[in-house]
C-alpha cells in the first residue's frame, strides 16, 4: 500500500480500531492496557497527523473516534475539523515505519502538537502513543 493513500488510511483505521493483539498485550503489564482501554472507552475526538513534505506542503491522516472506535480515516490537505493537529517530517514517519519507539518520538518532539489543548491531549497519552505505534506497523510503501 502506498503511504498516505486511501487504501493505507483504511488499513490504519482497522489497525488502530482493533487495538493490540494478544502477543503485543503480553509484552506489557495488563494494567497498562487496562488504562488504555479505559481512556478510549468513550473517546470521541479526532486527530490529524501531518506529514510535512520536502516541497513545503503537509498532508494529514485524519482519524475520527466515536465512543472508543475509530470510525473514519481519511487523507486530507486540511485538518480543519480535527481536535488535535500534530505533524512530523518525512524522516520521522520513515523511522516510525521502521520501528522507532513512538514514546521516544513524542518525547523528542519529533511529532509536535500544533493545535489542541495540551493537558486534555495528555490525559489519553498512552492510548495515543500505542495507536501511533499501530500505524507504524501497517505496511506501507514510502516512495510514492
Amino acid at each position, binding site marked *: 500500500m502506498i503511504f498516505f493513500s486511501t487504501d493505507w488510511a483504511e488499513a490504519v483505521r482497522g489497525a488502530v480500531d482493533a487495538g493490540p493483539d494478544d502477543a503485543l498485550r503480553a509484552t506489557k503489564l495488563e494494567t497498562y492496557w487496562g488504562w488504555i482501554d479505559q481512556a478510549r472507552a468513550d473517546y470521541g475526538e479526532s486527530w490529524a497527523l501531518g506529514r510535512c513534505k520536502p516541497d513545503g506542503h503537509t498532508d494529514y491522516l485524519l482519524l475520527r473516534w466515536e465512543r472508543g472506535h475509530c470510525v473514519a480515516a481519511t487523507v486530507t490537505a486540511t485538518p480543519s475539523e480535527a481536535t488535535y493537529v500534530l505533524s512530523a517530517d518525512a524522516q520521522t514517519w520513515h523511522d516510525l515505519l521502521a520501528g522507532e519507539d513512538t*514514546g521516544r518520538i513524542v518525547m523528542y*518532539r519529533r511529532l509536535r502538537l500544533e493545535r489542541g489543548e495540551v*493537558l486534555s491531549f495528555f490525559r489519553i497519552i498512552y492510548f495515543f502513543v500505542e495507536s501511533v505505534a499501530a500505524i507504524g506497523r501497517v505496511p506501507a510503501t514510502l516512495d510514492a
Partner: protein
Amino acid sequence: MDQEVLAGVEKSDLAQIRDLDIDDVIDYVHADLKRLPDYLDLYRRYLRQRWDVYELDFSQDIRDWNTAMTQSERDAFVAISSGFHHGERQVEVELPVFMLGGSEESKIFMSSQIEDEARHTIFFDRFYREVVGLPGESVQEVLDASFHHVSETFVGPFGLLAYLADELRRDPEDPVSRVRYGTTYFLWIEGVLALSVMKITLTYCRNRGFLPGYYAGFTATCRDEARHVQFGMRFLRDSVAEDPRLLREIHETLRTILTINGATSRRIALESLGWSPEEVRRLMIRQLSMKLNDVGIALPPDLQQMVARIEPELAGG
C-alpha cells in the same frame, strides 16, 4: 531538623558528601520550603555548591557492580536509573525555554539550573559507560543503549513537559503556560519523581555499602535538586499570590499528571533494592504533600483522592 546536620549538607564538598545520609539531604531540600530563599540567594548557593562531575572516582563502583551486586539488584538498579538518565537529558533540553521569561533574577538562576542538568546528564553518562558498561562513542549513543530499560510510561510526564515547552515557546511570558510547565517540572518531576528515585537508590547504596562514586555524585545531585525545588516552589507560590486564578492551572496540570500516573507498563523488582511498591507509593505521596503544604497550595477533594491513589513511578530529572 538538626541545624548542625543541615549545615553539614550545605557546606560539604564532593569528597565529604559521600558521608552524608540521603535522609539528611532530603530534609535539606525541605528545610527552606516555608521561607523560600530568593532567586539570587539560590544562585549564590549554586556557586558555592557546584561540583566537578569528572572528579568522581567509579573504580570501586565497577568492582561492586561486577562482583558484589546480584543480577536482580543490577536489573532493578538499571531499570530505575535509566528513567533518571533520560530524564536529566530531557530537562536539560526543555529548560532553556523557561529561562526566556520571568524576572532577570529568575533568568540568572535558570542559567545555573541548566548547567546543573547538563552536569547530571554527564554523571549518568559516565556511570552507564564506566560502571554498567554500555557502549557508545557519544552521549546520544549511550542514551540509545539505555533506552530499552526506560518504561513506556516515561513519555507521560516527560512528553508532557516537552509539549508544554512547545506551548511556552510561543509566548515565554504567558503566566498560564509558565505555571503549567512549573507544576510539571518543579513540583512533579523534580519534587516527587526525582527525590523518590534518589531516596530509593541512595538508601540501597548506603545500606549495602555499594557504589561509592554513584552515591557521592547522586547525593550531590540531590543537593542540587534542593535549589531547583525551592526555586520552583517559590515560583508557584508567587505566581498564585500575584494571580489567584493560576491555582486552577496548578490543579488542572496535577489532574493530568495524576491521570497518567495511573498507568504502569512494567514491574520493577523494587524488593531487590529493599523497597516494596507500597513504600514507594507512600514516599511519593509524602514528597508531594510536603511541598503542597509548605507553599500553601490546597487541593480540592477530587485531587486529594487522586493523590491517595498515586502509583509507584520511577524517573526523574
